[in-house]
């Protein structure tokens, strides 16, 4: 066969066309920016001319590498934040796995009460922006270092030590709780699907309860736990808002806060290098994860009569434990929201006198004596601009990422096992491991100037859409791959036999059948970008501000009431939307656990 026919034949199949297009686009949007950032670590930037004497902007230099890794200030700029980051990520993992895994065990393996309520409440911290809990922590536990004391001191009169209010301790607690639902979903899924007979077989062979957990249950969920550890680790590493809120008052620095400082300040070269280090760590984690999964012992769960799971009877602890769990969950989900609501009505936070309550921050026209005369958020046009930007951005990102994810799923499953499909699979997952802030830095460096057919995008709305789409593609493509994979190829082939066109097959057959999975591919990017801060913070300009970056600015200025009102607003939008979509279609991010 001659090569032209060969190529023509190849492109006659829609999955091949999609495959080639997607790979080309993703190489351009993911791989090339990586080279661009490496290049930037060796260049002199205009704001650095003062320090790197005798150069012009754009010259080759090893200055950044030397001063980050072996300079006089390396310890403060780099090594200490790196150490802080790694330690925080490690402890966060530990907290997330222990609470998430513990709850998953309680819900799937014991006769604890209120399983449904526990399950949906426990997911909330993950749906809410991670800094919700951080702000709640500040509301409750801040001390006089930053103005008015928190609620705890107001009510008890006890002064709180710095280590409890700010820095390492609260950061790990808050991040741990934020990622615990993630562990809960992953480990719970495994426990739920794990064949109960495996545990019963041990029971029959006279194995004690603890020995069963230690020798049978734990080793079998271990691979899932390791994956969870690695994913939580890389997420915790790239967290920005929580360390920024809780670390700044005591100058506790991690890599992301350093990245923000240096890129926003006068040393972008340092920033790019720090971003590169984070990307390398992320990549090592991905490789480790893949190595661990591909091991000899297959943990593929044989599906058995799992409906027969015999639950551990908590006996006399049942009611007490159920109530304790419920109370604790209310404490970390509903109570923070109430505190936001209450504080947004107080002129000076912490005082509960009647004359201290006001609707100023919601409805006021702005009083010159309070917070520079900023009008209340329901009358503030900047808030509406931010809200409109947030919604517009999230909708666009969700549509683009969701569609791309579905196409990735289609072509990867169709060409399963081929080298191209594997590359696309990996490429589409890669953005997951790029720390958000570092990814923002990459796009800043890449699209600050015209590149090929793409004009300079800095300051435009398009760059936000682009980065959000690429960053959330991993969620969407996982959902897409799942959807198409579960469907099996026969369903589509039956339509191919009848000569139904590709477009019709997708719209009339594949998408309707798998609408729940497909929709969750759209839902996840939407929710994620609604609450995203660190990805956008380097790229927004006053005209493209979104709610989250405004919140961050209000917070930096110390305008807690506005910040509280906005966060309440975002949480409500996200939670409501998740609930509505869940009700209407059955798609949801917490699907699959807790009856």
């Amino acid at each position: 066969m001659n090569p032209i026919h060969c190529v023509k034949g190849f492109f006659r199949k829609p999955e091949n066309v999609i495959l080639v297009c997607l790979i080309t686009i993703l190489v351009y949007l993911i791989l090339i920016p990586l080279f661009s950032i490496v290049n930037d670590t060796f260049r002199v930037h205009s704001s650095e001319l003062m320090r790197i004497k005798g150069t012009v902007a754009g010259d080759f230099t090893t200055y950044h590498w030397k001063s980050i890794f072996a300079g006089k200030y390396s310890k403060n700029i780099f090594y200490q934040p790196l150490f802080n980051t790694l330690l925080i990520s490690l402890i966060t993992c530990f907290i997330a796995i222990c609470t998430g895994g513990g709850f998953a065990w309680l819900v799937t393996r014991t006769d604890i009460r209120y399983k449904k309520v526990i399950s949906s409440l426990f997911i909330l911290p993950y749906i809410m922006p991670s800094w919700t809990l951080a702000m709640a922590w500040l509301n409750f536990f801040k001390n006089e270092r930053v103005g008015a004391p928190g609620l705890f001191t107001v009510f008890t009169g006890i002064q709180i030590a710095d280590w409890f209010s700010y820095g390492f301790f609260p950061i790990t607690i808050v991040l741990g709780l934020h990622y615990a639902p993630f562990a809960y979903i992953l480990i719970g899924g495994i426990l739920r699907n794990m064949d109960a007979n495996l545990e019963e077989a041990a029971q029959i062979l006279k194995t004690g309860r603890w020995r069963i957990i230690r020798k049978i249950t734990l080793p079998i969920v271990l691979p899932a736990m390791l994956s969870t550890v690695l994913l939580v680790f890389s997420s915790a590493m790239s967290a920005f808002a929580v360390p920024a809120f809780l670390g700044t008052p005591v100058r506790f620095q991690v890599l992301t806060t350093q990245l923000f400082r240096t890129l926003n300040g006068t040393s972008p070269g340092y920033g790019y290098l720090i971003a590169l280090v984070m990307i390398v760590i992320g990549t090592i984690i991905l490789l480790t994860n893949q190595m661990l999964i591909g091991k000899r012992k297959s943990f593929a769960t044989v599906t058995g009569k799992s409906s027969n799971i015999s639950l551990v009877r908590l006996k006399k602890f049942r009611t007490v434990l159920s109530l304790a769990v419920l109370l604790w969950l209310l404490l970390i989900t509903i109570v923070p929201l109430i505190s936001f609501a209450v504080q947004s009505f107080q002129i000076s936070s912490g005082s509960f006198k009647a004359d201290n309550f006001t609707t100023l921050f919601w409805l006021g026209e702005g009083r010159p004596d309070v917070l520079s005369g900023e009008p209340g958020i329901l009358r503030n046009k900047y808030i509406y601009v931010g809200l409109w930007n947030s919604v517009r951005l999230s909708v666009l990102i969700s549509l683009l990422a969701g569609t791309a994810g579905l196409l990735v799923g289609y072509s990867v499953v169709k060409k399963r096992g081929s080298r191209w499909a594997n590359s696309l699979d990996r490429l589409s997952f890669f953005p997951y491991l790029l720390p958000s802030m570092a990814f923002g830095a990459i796009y800043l460096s890449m699209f600050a100037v015209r590149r090929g057919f793409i004009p300079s995008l800095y300051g435009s709305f398009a760059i936000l859409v682009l980065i959000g789409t690429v960053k959330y593609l991993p969620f969407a493509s996982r959902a897409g791959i799942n959807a198409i994979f579960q469907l099996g190829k026969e369903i589509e082939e039956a339509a191919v036999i009848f000569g139904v066109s590709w477009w019709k097959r997708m719209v009339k057959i594949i998408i309707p059948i798998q609408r729940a999975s497909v929709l969750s591919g759209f839902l996840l990017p939407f929710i994620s970008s609604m609450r995203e801060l660190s990805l956008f913070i380097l790229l927004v300009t006053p005209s493209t501000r979104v709610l989250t970056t405004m919140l961050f600015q209000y917070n930096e200025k110390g305008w807690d009431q506005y910040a509280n009102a906005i966060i309440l607003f975002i949480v409500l939008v996200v939670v409501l939307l998740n609930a509505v979509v869940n009700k209407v279609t059955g798609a949801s991010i917490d699907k699959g656990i807790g009856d």
Partner: protein
Amino acid sequence: MPEIRIENVTKKFGKFVAVENLTITIKDKWFVTLLGPSGCGKTTTLRMISGLESPTEGKIYIDDVLVFSAAEGIDLPPAKRDVGFLFQNYALWPHMTVSQNISFGLENLKWNRTDIDCRVQDLTELLKIDEFLGRYPAELSGGQQQRVAIARTLAPRPKVLFMDEPLSNLDAKLRMEMRAELKRLHRETNSTFVYVTHDQLEAMTLSSRICLMKEGRVQQYAAPLDIYNGPSNLFCAEFVGNPTMNFIEVACLQTEPGRISLTSDDLNFTFAPVSPQPKVTAGQNLVLGLRPESVLLSEKGSIHGTIYSALPSGMETTVMVKTGNSLLTSVVFGGQDFPVDGWTGVELNHDNYILFDKSSGENIATGTLTVALREGGV
């Protein structure tokens, strides 16, 4: 000696009654099969005896020890009942090698290492899996996994062995082989086996007693051939035996000692009981049950029919004959084929035809049949 007594056991899942008022005794060294269609409560029964499930009511004794009593609040955990359990999907631990899987139970019993190794060696040789000791379950075929599961169950020498459809995941050929081996194992281990299956052939060939269940109730508890020859009701008659028994709906015309006259759509029969004379009244609706091997094809046959289909397997041929409005199945031994739509006669000269009452389904008599052609009949 381990004798299992189950007294008035009932199990409810919410409002659904899975097992109702079950009372059976399983004697020492028996091979008892719980047989029935899916959802009849057989697996639940097995899980209750082994302690994996707690009954709602009733008592269970194993080896004269009361292991469960709803009234007295006794519920011994499985570990204290000294039993072995073989799961349908084998439930091999994926993270342990074959030898770790087998020795796990012995370690729980605090055996010393040499004894464990010895036992593992013996069992794996017996079950012909000694070459796979270092492998993980995922690296074995279905039949090999099955053997590992058996070895693991047998290792602590349980006196009672429970098996939940252990052969249903194997292919037909392997299933045959494993059946033979299970029967040998039963002899060699000298223990009591309780076996769950929905495959009547498996139950027939393996067991010393079959407990046939339907919708949570015992239909018949007897030796396989007793059930085959004397099914207690229509359900048992239909469930056991392949091809299925032929059923002809008839009505009683008249009855006199040693003779019952019956009529179907197009045939008249005279039924002569070899069992005690049943109480039948004229006009009562009855069902005649004829095993396929007792329906003979012969030129002299008094019933005329045409061949509807013939399925020769080499060893025997299953023939369906159309007589009037009904289809009769017959089994002819030997490698014979029959031309479809060809003519044949049917003869009924055995003495094992069964008469069931139609409304209660009960078996009321066994006997011989004479067929009389009716005016205008076939």
